[in-house]
């Protein structure tokens, strides 16, 4: 019954994607991206079970490491812009346009 897990993974991915598009706080946007990555992990592990090989589980470990590295870089950037502007809203970052 692995289909249920795939549906759950697709739902999580969709929630994350919609969150990135509608939320305004950079930290929340970033959390939504992390949710999307975890949805991918769930899909990988499920497919690994379906195919009966371990590739998907190993990929999930790689994704976790990459996600951790991304958190380090992302929070550094968001904290810097917060200290400069006293705001982490992505709507306030509007100097570059057209």
């Amino acid at each position, binding site marked *: 019954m692995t289909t249920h897990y795939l549906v759950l993974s697709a739902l999580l991915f969709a929630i994350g994607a919609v969150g990135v598009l509608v939320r305004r706080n950079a930290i929340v946007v970033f959390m939504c991206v992390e949710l999307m990555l975890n949805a991918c992990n769930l899909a990988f592990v499920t497919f690994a079970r379906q195919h009966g090989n371990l590739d998907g589980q190993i990929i999930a470990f790689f994704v976790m490491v990459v996600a951790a590295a991304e958190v380090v*870089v992302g929070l550094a950037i968001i904290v810097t812009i917060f200290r400069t502007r006293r705001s982490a809203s992505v709507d306030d970052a509007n100097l*570059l346009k057209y």
Partner: protein
Amino acid sequence: MNGIQPPTIEYGQLMPLLLVFGAAIVGVLIEAFAPRYLRKAIHVPLTMLTLLGAFGLVIVQVLRDGVPTAAVAMGAIAVDGPSLFIWGVILVLSVVSVLLINDDDNFVASAAAVPGSPDEEEAIARGGAHTEVYPLALFAIGGMMLFAASNDLLIMFVGLEVMSLPLYLLCGLARRRRLLSQESSVKYFLLGAFSSAFFLYGMAMIYGYAGTVDLGGINDALGRVGGQDTLLYLGTALLGVGLFFKIGAAPFQAWKPDVYQGAPTPITALMASGTLVAAFGAVLRVFWVALGNLDWDWRPVMWGIAILTMIVGAILAITQTDIKRMLAYSSIAHAGFLLTGVIATGEATQNANSLSALLFYLLAYGITTVGAFAVVTMVRDAGGEAGHLSRWAGLGKRSPALAGIFAFFLLAFAGIPLTSGFFGKYAVFAAAVAGGALPLVVVGVVSSAIAAFFYVRVIVLMFFSEPAADGPTIAVPSAGTAAVVALAAAATVVLGVYPQPVFDLADAAASSLFVR
């Protein structure tokens, strides 16, 4: 199962990659242990020697062992002809970009200090700039090489992130106009992370379809697996979103002008040349090697994307008032021209022709781009670089040599004969016609003509209008910057007048196509 087999790793063939990553790690250690005043003196020779050494290793490998015919490291990385050519191109472009990075005036003294605060004044008074730039750049360059040479989707994802994460940080380190720089960094990071999540989900779908993420294995599965087409098409589309974001193809091009404008100009040069080359390497591998037998399905979509990219790039460039934004839109248009070559597949000879044209185009475009951004770093006024186009009025009267070289670069972008851009475009469009993409070439030529309009407009502005009384000054270039401009101009001339040796090299690299 007879226990665990240790993996075999061909260290010799992977040496250029390992050298760059090794030097990046040494660079981090230098940041940790060397005293501040010594760091730059260590980093500059270390970085330059590493990049030149890696380039030397690539050449030695080609001359001594020829081109490998199988993927290395248990099929994870393909050091084949196109890979070696792309590595060479990336390393050459990195060397010239690092020459620009050496110029102290481009990077922030203390990224942690809030702009305008006493902390920042103190850091500026202390002098110097962040030397973390060097290891970060090396990681990004290593990531580019890995991204373009990966033979399975997992390595490609890791390469993508190793390339992108340092670039997100580097974008936020401009010395002047720090608000713009930080904003470009946030935008690039959030959009980049968003797009790589799409890439990853696409990879999961393809894995679900094929049961492997090996590019050759996916290709085998195309003929074997039935009844799972939803997974395959979904996966292809999502992978495409991630890759097209990286090359800046419309409709995923929105980040490019913002990031190019806000980032420190040497980093923009590295991104505009190296990232584009690496991302095209990855696009070719995914769509030609893994999904090559699916070309009837992805080709119509890519037609649409190529046409949209060329037109959006060329038309929006006309309305720009900032020189770096204009170059960003020009880079979008060039990504569209390159896509026409990706679409022109057919039997093996046709593929080899398209591939060799693309390789030549990437080299020619990359080197001209670095040169153009090097000129941008030299035109300065009180607040740093004079980005606004109106400030460039009359530059030809103040500094005819510099304006002449810049005009020459712009003509190369436009594809005027006797410049490298002409042969690049000619080769790609000829390959596209041979591959049956004639309508695309028509669109390409029309958008080239539109693009030529705004290049010529800048040239007219520089030479035929009066300079403003308080116009920008031309900074006396450092030896590195002068060398970059001279080198890029020389390469643009040589590739435009006598391109045959490089064409032969690209042909040789492309003749055996990608290993599987």
